[in-house]
């Protein structure tokens, strides 16, 4: 006996098995990311005054990534709709674009991560704190571009204020297009040094964890979608109904991934 309702709907529930399965799985994913969001809130609310950083992330790549995922959400549902309209060629096109978008997302993310890992944050012996992009390092000194500096005791929450103050300062001096010059720091002046990885503070920790886990879901989803674009698409010839169902179900997962990012973007990048 075969397992029933794999590609037909059970009369009383109106659903086929995989659809029930994927929504149950998505429910557990809601709890997974929900727990992470709850952790984020607890950590932020519980942080010491002035010690929660803002403005550390570049909004640009985040914005582009949001658009990329939204596009891929449309193409993945269009892929399913194309199958329902019996247009296999269009399905291949839309499914393919979805995979490309996923890859683009991951590539942009890796550039973002890399820029964090090469961003250095030093506390000097005189109590000042400087952070910037590492452009050069020798045994004696490091050079940071676009440096931001402020007294270390003020906490990283002070950073946006420090930037505004520096801009106001430059404006007063008549230098409207001022870009802070590269700063060379001798290693002897440095008390502590770290990079902006998850070890640097809890904000970056939760940022890397949230976006990292999300990126793993993007990769997993991309693999499944790529499989159905490629070798898995053979099933269209033998079981078109069941194949369309699989595209629908994997599409649901993909939409969920997009959904999570729709919340992640403002929470991590903008607030």
């Amino acid at each position, binding site marked *: 006996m075969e*397992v029933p309702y794999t590609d037909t709907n059970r009369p009383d529930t109106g659903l086929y098995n995989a659809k029930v399965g994927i929504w149950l799985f998505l429910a557990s994913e809601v709890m997974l990311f929900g727990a992470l969001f709850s952790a984020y809130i607890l950590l932020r609310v519980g942080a010491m005054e002035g010690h929660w950083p803002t403005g550390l992330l570049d909004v640009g790549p985040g914005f582009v990534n949001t658009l990329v995922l939204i596009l891929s959400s449309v193409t993945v549902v269009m892929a399913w709709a194309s199958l329902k309209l019996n247009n296999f060629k269009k399905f291949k096109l839309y499914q393919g674009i979805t995979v490309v978008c996923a890859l683009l997302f991951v590539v942009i993310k890796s550039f973002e991560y890399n820029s964090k890992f090469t961003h250095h944050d030093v506390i000097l012996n005189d109590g000042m704190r400087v952070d910037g992009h590492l452009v050069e390092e020798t045994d004696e000194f490091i050079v940071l571009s676009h440096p931001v500096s402020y007294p270390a005791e003020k906490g990283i929450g002070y950073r946006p204020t420090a930037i505004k103050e520096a801009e106001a300062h430059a404006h007063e001096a008549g230098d409207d297009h001022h870009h802070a010059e590269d700063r060379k720091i001798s290693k002897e002046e440095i008390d502590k040094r770290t990079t902006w990885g998850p070890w640097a503070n809890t904000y970056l920790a939760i940022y890397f964890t949230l976006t990292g886990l999300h990126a793993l879901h993007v990769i997993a989803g991309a693999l499944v979608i790529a499989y159905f674009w490629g070798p898995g698409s053979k099933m269209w010839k033998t079981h078109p109904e069941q194949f369309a169902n699989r595209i629908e179900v994997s599409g649901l997962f993909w939409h969920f991934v997009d959904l999570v990012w729709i919340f992640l973007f403002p929470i991590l990048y903008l607030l």
Partner: protein
Amino acid sequence: MESADPQAHHEAGHENHDHGEAHHHDPGFWRKYVFSTDHKMIGIQYGLTSLLFMLLGFFLIAMMRWSIAYPGQPIPVIGYLLHTIMGDMASPVLDPQTKELIGYAISNDLYNSFGAMHGTIMVFLAVVPLAFAAFGNYVVPLQIGAPDMAFPRLNMASYHLFLLGGLVMFASFFIPGGPAQAGWTSYSPLATSIPTDGQFYWLVAMVIIITSSLLGAVNFIATIIQLRAPGMTWMRMPFFCWAQFVTAFLLLLAFPPLEVGALLQLMDNVAGTSFYLPTGLAVSTLSDVSGGGSPLLYQHLFWFLGHPEVYVLILPAMGVVSEIIANNTRKPIWGYKSLVYSVLVLGFLSFIVWAHHMYLTGMGTKISTFFQTTTMIISIPSVIILSCLFISLWGGRIRFNTPMLFALAFLPMFGIGGLTGLPLGFNYSDILLHDTYYVIGHFHYVVAPGTIFALIAGIYFWYPKMTGRYMSEFWGRVHFWCSFVFMNLTFQPMFAQGMAGMLRRMADGGAGYSIANNPDAIGGLADRYLQLNVNITLAAYALGISQIPFIINLFYSIKNGKKVESDNPWESTTLDWQTPTPPPHGNFAGPIKVVNGPYEYSVPGAKADFVPQNQKA
């Protein structure tokens, strides 16, 4: 392998079907026994694996109990084996005069390791896989009239992930520094302060095991919703299936936050983050961490699962007991509707009681009152379920076979476990009892003479369906009476110890806090409570020995047990007994249509004292 419709097997839609095509030719050893997609084989795989882990968990506590009763004394024989495997964690004991080596005792660190692993293994690798995955996989599709689970290949993946996670846990015993030491609860900052790798293995294994459970839960829920046979309405489903259904939902929705908790702790462990490490944390010196984290965050994430987890431990057991009681009283379960609604309410409430495990973390009065209230409310459906089962006995023609003995014992044992939970649920009385031996007594009563008795009953009960033979009734009774007596002798004294203030997780059994060692201190432990340590240890060893007849019986009866007289030897109404023995691939000889409720026993005017669900009276 007969089938009503040979055409169906050749249908092209084989995606969910074992590609070995078992119904026409032998799939071979690997496809049949190792990489099976058949729910019955997977159920047996889960069952045997979890029983092995249960044995391991027992050995761990056996060694710990030696340390509790005879602190510092070398363990005879086993001590040398321990030293070979665990190295210096088994500390050498020298004769005070001659300074010669007289044996090896477990060190405090090793005691902590064993404690953490005993809890972890028993909860996650023994009881849950046995209660939920093993029994659920074997019985649920049969009882709802389905040919298999909704996603057979996912089922296989779930088992293998469970096995992998279990192997990672097992492997952690053999690494330098030994396995995890921070308790089965693995609280931060302790868990990230321990310099050895055991915690890392524990966390990785937990993530794998949780994934296995999640996939299993999806499978169970989808199966019960979608694959009930025609006529099997929700309210005609055996209570066992309802219990498994709610259990699956608990696993599905409560495990992910623990996965997050474990993931964050893993990040703290390997990536230098401070999710759970507060600013200013000092272990022996000021820790070089970024700070800003919260140890309580971990506790919330852990116990959000931790509480539903205990209902995961008990609900399948209640389901098993219901089936066995209905069958052996020859009358319907009393209050089927109450049972169903109670189990649904229980599952729902179990998500909002978790912080009663955290009363001593400095919670304010409002929030602890909230959790205290929900905790008290959740005892109501529990009591309703137990009462329905008790009342079901009234007026029954009770057959006292081995499964029924264990099922009957479950009732008062779970009653004791549940009642002793009440002082723990009130935040005021919990201040005295938290982290004492009282808690250990409470939860062991619910899980050991509670759940485990029910699962043993289930093994005796369904064994004839799996093998076509009964287990020995004589040795079953020996097993029962010995287990029952020694189980109570082991856990009953712990309540007294706990109320006297004896704390948990002490390698020397509280000797360091005894009045004898500290005559001038206030609140020391009197000798009579420390003496109980010896009584408990001896009872525990006797309990262990009592399992030997069961283990032998289990394997011996496969080939030598008394053969069953029919496919339905217990004369049961449920669909799992209306199959060939053992059920073939696809389970039923033909299509099933359900026409009765699940417990049509002693129906007036019927030919026999039971009417199967798929037959008219």
